[in-house]
């Protein structure tokens, strides 16, 4: 099963290689990884998407916790949470498809962030399934370039009933 794991780490030299080395050294899988500084510049947050059965994921979270520079590990999959990815897609459609490209971008709440005589660059954020859907739909129109971020995730706060 796939798991999205949030790892809060000390923003120190070499910490990324400690994490990635742990995954490669122990044969765990990284499907996607996104890293950035938090509001506190001394701390970075990594969102790692990995897969494995319960035993493996338990080991992954324990092994991550064992690293000296790791402050906190949260398996988001166990919580109610919001996940997002972003893609930038450069499409070069035929003349007759241009309107359809723009329509699709609108349906998926995408934005055209760049355009030229032959191309549109569309930015789309959303959950994995949404991203996959738009990619499928745009493929026949001629995708020229495609970049995608790793997943980021945040836990939802509970709402008290009035």
């Amino acid at each position, binding site marked *: 099963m796939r798991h999205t794991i949030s790892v809060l780490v000390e923003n120190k030299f070499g910490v990324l290689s400690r994490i990635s080395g742990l995954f490669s050294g122990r044969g765990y899988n990284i499907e996607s990884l996104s890293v950035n500084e938090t509001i506190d510049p001394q701390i970075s947050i990594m969102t790692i998407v990995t897969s494995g059965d319960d035993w493996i994921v338990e080991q992954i979270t324990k092994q991550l916790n064992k690293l*000296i520079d790791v402050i906190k590990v949260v398996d988001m999959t166990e919580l109610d949470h919001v996940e997002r990815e972003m893609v930038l897609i450069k499409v070069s459609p035929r003349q007759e498809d241009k309107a359809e490209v723009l329509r699709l971008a609108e349906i998926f709440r995408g934005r055209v962030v760049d355009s030229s005589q032959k191309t549109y660059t569309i930015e789309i954020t959303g959950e994995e399934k949404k991203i996959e859907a738009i990619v499928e739909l745009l493929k026949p129109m001629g995708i020229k370039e495609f970049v995608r971020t790793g997943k980021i995730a945040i836990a939802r706060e509970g709402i008290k009933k009035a």
Partner: protein
Amino acid sequence: MKISGAEIFIESLKKEGVQHMFGYPGGVVLNIFDKLHDEKGLELILTRHEQGAVHAADGYARATGKPGVVLVTSGPGATNTVTGIATAYMDSIPMVIFTGQVPTLLIGNDAFQEADIVGITRPCTKHNFLVKNVEDLAGVIKEAFYIAMAGRPGPVLIDLPKDVTTHKAEFVYPEDVKLRSYNPTYDGNKYMIKQAAQMVARAKKPVIVAGGGVILSGASKELKEFAEYADVPVTMTMMGLGGFPGSHKLSLGMLGMHGTYYANKSIQEADLLIAIGMRFDDRVTGKIDAFAPHAKIIHIDIDPTSIRKNVRVDTPIVGDVKNVLTVLNKVMKEEVKDQWVEVRKAWTKQLDAWRRERPMTYDRESDMIKPQYVVEKIYELTKGDAIITTEVGQNQMWAAQFFKYDKPRTWLSSGGLGTMGYGLPAAIGAQLAFPNKLVIDIAGDGSIQMNIQELATAVINKLPVKVAILNNRFLGMVRQWQELFFEERYSHTKLDDVVPDFVKLAEAYNAVGLRATKKSEVEAVLKEAFSIKRPVFMDFVTDWQEKVYPMVPAGAAIDNMLFYEEKKKVEKKLKAVK
């Protein structure tokens, strides 16, 4: 007043109470070595190879419980430490290794003797540091010693660029360390401990499996109290030897691939395993699906990753073994009185039956020098009062099987990594820590040659280590596997023509060399060696065909054992046919 990085290094080590370290000089650490020249309170033992320095520091750490300290230069000096560091890492031995590094401005330029040692050792250290500013040095050293000792101990490496040793800073040594990202759990969960106590009280066929964690946490006394009070037999992993007295009536000896019949049998029949400070290594469990099929498992360990890594666990207790056992003993005495006395009688009887059925043995009638005989003689003559180090292979297994370790920190052997060449430098480290103790490296003729240069270190520093070489002219353990599983095709294991004359070799180093070629000479050689206050090599020319038994073939269940007696039967059968 500002002082140089080299001086900060020395002052910091003094603050940590370091008296001895091991090392080897080189270009980028010259500033530190220069300061050491006049230093009285901090002694550096010059080894003859950086690997030897790390093993010596490791032996020192295992024998004393204090962190071992190493100082070497950059590049090859640093890379030569890797095997030693990995050895310590696998066995959770606290150590701080300082490596020199090229000046910060040259890092990444492929400078002379540059190696990315922080990158290289990342997977085999508990943590490592590259110090870029001299202002950070004292704090990093403090953190390194803390990390090496805290929680599950391990080696920590500090990479010191040359300019950091010459730049100056105010010396302020931090009083203590607080890391928001590293807070090991020392106290076990009370509820879990109570649950464990109930399980122990109810068990009909319980067994304790004690590992190296018992020794690392200094919990031998608590373990003995627990085992005796609850009347539970104790088997030990190789790393756990000495954690519980080997001569105790509750001791089942070592378990696993070369464990005793009765230890392995007890695991397979048990209804409860109490695993203490051990990690269910494959050499312990054999075929994992067939391991302890009837047992519930209580697992006490300070490292959460050890729990549920290899086996299912019913009652996990994360905590320091000593703390947990102290509470467990209290709970046992207060809440679960000795309700098990009657229930356990049958189990005790069964264990005794297994002990009688297949005791640890070998061909005692043989005229040849059997390696086990040498180990037994060492035990007999020292009455167990010695620090034993080993190399790796048959020598190590015989030393584990035929010597009873009654006290912790008297058995120093490379368990997890299985590093040949460990024993001699480790003995040197232990001897430095305990100058008046008898320190004996039980070695093989193959392994001893892997760090034989350290004999010079022993001689020059007047460290009277004794090396008992069980000389079978083979890489014996590999040869054993070739005999049993590869139709006696001895590919590259025969050392016969090139084994050096160990007596002459010892003499060349200005040590003492003795030799026994007959069984009748063994005792005299040992007695003479033990009476000499100098390093001694003892060359015991042993039966090359001798094998380590019992043996669980790799991948088999641990009660699926091969025995010495059966081999004999097989041989007889073969003769009868001919």
